[in-house]
């Protein structure tokens, strides 16, 4: 069985390489005949109307070829700084071409390319390539046109206080945003190219000395292992590098905010940037990372702590409230105070459905409304919310299809799930709500408890890049509790959180608690 599977995989791999056979083999170097080079490149870029081949005479007599992709390259710069100086003047002295380029071409970055593969990769990034007659070395000029949208506030993670810049779709801007936050040369950025066709640049970033060496190696290995046609978003890569692919829980944190990424880097985590998406990935993370917002660290610590507790409470509500309601209504009516029970019974008197079905109908409707609200254009989105509020909220109760308490429960659950700062985690808990409702409708509170135990077992099994998902609660790391259960003031957060071992322990000097008396020191 295993042997057959291996053969199948090998066959697949062979087919995969065959399909890209028109790309020249890795190390075929450029010829010293310009016509050969031109022909080979033209063959590679057959039917590519956006690739421009410009032949010109260097020094009035020597043949030269300029290749670039229209739209990716700064054509004005080529005109002014490459073609003009090389074509217009005649040079008395005969030096090597290399010296000529050094002297006359006013471009910051010039790199030599010697193989077709290099040539093609430079051209496809947008760097024009100059090839000269009689030389088997081409020159790639760093004149790619940076196409980028303006840096704006990320809509998925807005804050009241804190930096308002967000990552954009261009990798080099994102890279600069990170570098602007952490200027130390210890901030490393390793580049890997992924995608047979997309050639997407992926950057593994970490602060050397803070991040654990084995962790960096593990990330590097996992990313390098990926072999795929194209990476269009970090989400594609995420599914390849997770620890437990079948878990509903996200094991990698995604963020649009440079300050979150920089904060994670300073805690010794690894940040993975993918070209073409504003979402960068952070690993390793724990369950509690998904319940923390960047603002927690900018607000006053008492408020942050209270808000964290609120989030924990609403996390439980978003997972359990509908199932708890169903369990109480179906099995444990004695728990409800009498007055409330009477009014609840009165509102349920005319209902055609048992509580379990009622809850499922309402929850599914709510999820559908939410999904419709996200996908629709903004103008229609308002209409959906009106329909949702009126039809679901008001009419369904009047028509006697659902009870008013159920509407309250579902609405509260909906709000609760929006208090979780990370969408990927919120949606996981929202999905788990449905099995919990079914368990509550069949086994009551016992069913809910069995469901919770199952979730806890699963969470205990999970790891994110080798770090237990429930840490620092289980396994308990008492030193990190002050940034999990609460948010201790900054002058108390002296020790760095550590995922694998103890090294470079302190992140600030101790006893910095502000005190008016200290001003004299």
């Amino acid at each position, binding site marked *: 069985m295993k042997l057959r599977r291996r053969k199948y995989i090998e066959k697949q791999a062979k087919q995969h390489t065959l399909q890209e056979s028109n790309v020249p083999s890795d190390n075929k170097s450029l010829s010293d005949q310009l016509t050969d080079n031109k022909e080979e490149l033209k063959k590679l870029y057959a039917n590519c109307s956006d690739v421009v081949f410009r032949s010109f005479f260097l020094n009035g007599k020597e043949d030269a070829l300029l290749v670039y992709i229209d739209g990716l390259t700064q054509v004005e710069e080529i005109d002014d700084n490459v073609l003009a100086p090389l074509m217009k003047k005649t040079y008395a002295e005969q030096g090597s071409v290399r010296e000529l380029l050094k002297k006359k071409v006013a471009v910051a970055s010039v790199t030599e390319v010697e193989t077709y593969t290099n040539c093609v990769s430079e051209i496809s990034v947008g760097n024009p390539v100059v090839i000269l007659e009689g030389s088997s070395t081409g020159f790639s000029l760093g004149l790619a046109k940076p196409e980028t949208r303006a840096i704006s506030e990320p809509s998925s993670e807005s804050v009241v206080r804190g930096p308002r810049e967000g990552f954009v779709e261009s990798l080099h801007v994102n890279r600069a945003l990170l570098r602007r936050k952490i200027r130390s040369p210890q901030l490393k950025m390793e580049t890997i190219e992924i995608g047979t066709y997309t050639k997407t640049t992926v950057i593994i970033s970490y602060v050397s000395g803070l991040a654990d060496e084995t962790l960096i190696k593990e990330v590097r290995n996992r990313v390098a292992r990926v072999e795929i046609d194209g990476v269009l978003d970090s989400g594609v890569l995420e599914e390849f590098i997770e620890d437990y692919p079948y878990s509903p829980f996200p094991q990698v944190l995604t963020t649009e905010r440079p300050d979150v990424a920089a904060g994670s880097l300073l805690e010794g985590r690894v940040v993975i940037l993918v070209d073409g998406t504003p979402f960068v990935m952070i690993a390793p993370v724990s369950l509690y990372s998904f319940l923390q917002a960047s603002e927690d660290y900018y607000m006053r610590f008492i408020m942050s702590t209270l808000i964290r507790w609120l989030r924990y409470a609403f996390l439980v509500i978003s997972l359990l409230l509908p199932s708890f309601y169903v369990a109480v209504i179906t099995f444990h009516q004695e728990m409800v105070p009498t007055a409330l029970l009477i009014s609840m019974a009165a509102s349920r008197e005319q209902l055609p459905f048992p509580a379990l079905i009622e809850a499922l109908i309402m929850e599914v409707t709510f999820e559908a409304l939410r999904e419709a609200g996200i996908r629709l254009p903004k103008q229609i989105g308002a209409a959906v919310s009106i329909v949702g509020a009126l039809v679901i909220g008001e009419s369904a109760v009047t028509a006697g299809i659902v009870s008013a308490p159920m509407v309250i429960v579902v609405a509260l659950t909906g709000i609760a799930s929006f208090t979780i700062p990370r969408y990927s985690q919120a949606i996981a808990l929202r999905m788990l709500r449905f099995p919990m409702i079914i368990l509550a409708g069949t*086994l*009551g*509170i*016992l069913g809910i408890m*069995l469901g919770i*135990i199952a979730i806890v*077992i699963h969470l*205990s099994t999970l790891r994110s890049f080798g770090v237990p998902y*429930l840490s620092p609660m289980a*396994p308990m790391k008492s030193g990190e509790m002050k940034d999990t259960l609460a948010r201790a003031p900054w002058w108390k957060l002296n020790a760095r959180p550590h995922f694998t071992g103890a090294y470079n322990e302190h992140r600030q000097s101790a006893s910095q608690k502000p005190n008016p008396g200290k001003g004299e020191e």
Partner: protein
Amino acid sequence: MENGRISASQMALMMYPVVTGTGIIFIPSLTANAAGNDMWLSPVWAASAGWIAIFTALHLHRLNPNQTIIQYSERLLGKFLGKVVSLVLLFFYLVMNGGGVRIYSDFVTGSFFEETPTYIIVSSMMLLSAFAVRGGVEVIGRTAEMLTPIYILFLLLVFLLILPDLRPENALPMLENGFTPSLKGAYTPQSWFAEFFVIAFLIPYVKKEKTAARWGVISLIAVTLTFTATNLAVLFLLGEDVTAKLNYPLLDAIQYISIAEFLQHLESIVMAIWVAGAFVKFTVIQYAIVLGTAQVFELTDYKALVFPLSFLTVLFSFWGIVGEADSTYHSSTVFPLTSLIMQTLLPLGLLLISYFQKKTGLFPR
């Protein structure tokens, strides 16, 4: 075979529910029957079985480092006899866990879900614990670390909430007939305390072994306090006569809770939290059974045994137990004796042999 490691505090959090899981609902009534209004003293005497269990397990481990009882019993008694003793011990745990699951399901069906078939309750619990056992000792440790604190907190909350209804005069006259009744009452709970011997399966996987003793003792003291507090609470609230007649006195005590006409009838919630503790208990013992069986038969991996042995535990929760009354009878007569033999005398014997072997070097390695 087991690559995971747990911390000593995780071990303590695993052991606390192992003893209190089923004990807390059963022991008040059993001790009240034997000790009358001295029932609160019985757990303190009974705890000596726990001290012996921890002492023997630790010393056996010190003399036979990095081995579970299954492995060193083979070394101490010889291959054949060692395997036989190990199998008998594992069989004892299998019967004990089956009985424990039965107590759990009888409690749940008897008090809450009268119509639900017992096998649903039993098998859903064993299925969950099988999942946890498959994850290995690390997963069980972390699960216990998440669930046991909630379990302890709720117990404390229950004690706090029934405080207004307590009548301490129920305990009077104290020690009317000397210490004999309370010592008699200690006979049943000692078997629960002796379950601390399960740490003999866990210590080889504890990270800092030196802290294992301290945390084991902390866990034991916590258990003793819990049982004493439970017995006191039940005695103060219901009195000895009522307590002796009730099957689950703590449950009835919880029904007394009524604060501001809003916090009342909390028994379903307390039951649910207790289920979490019971789950940890069954899982830890099931893990010991599975690991031990794999070691007896010298398998490379125990994962294949998890589901068959869990199924066997489900069967043992039905075999030989006719009903709730039979289960109570079993817990108060058969179980204390077998526990005394298997969890107290057998380990002490092994310890003697181990000492003797170390002194003289007579037995083969």
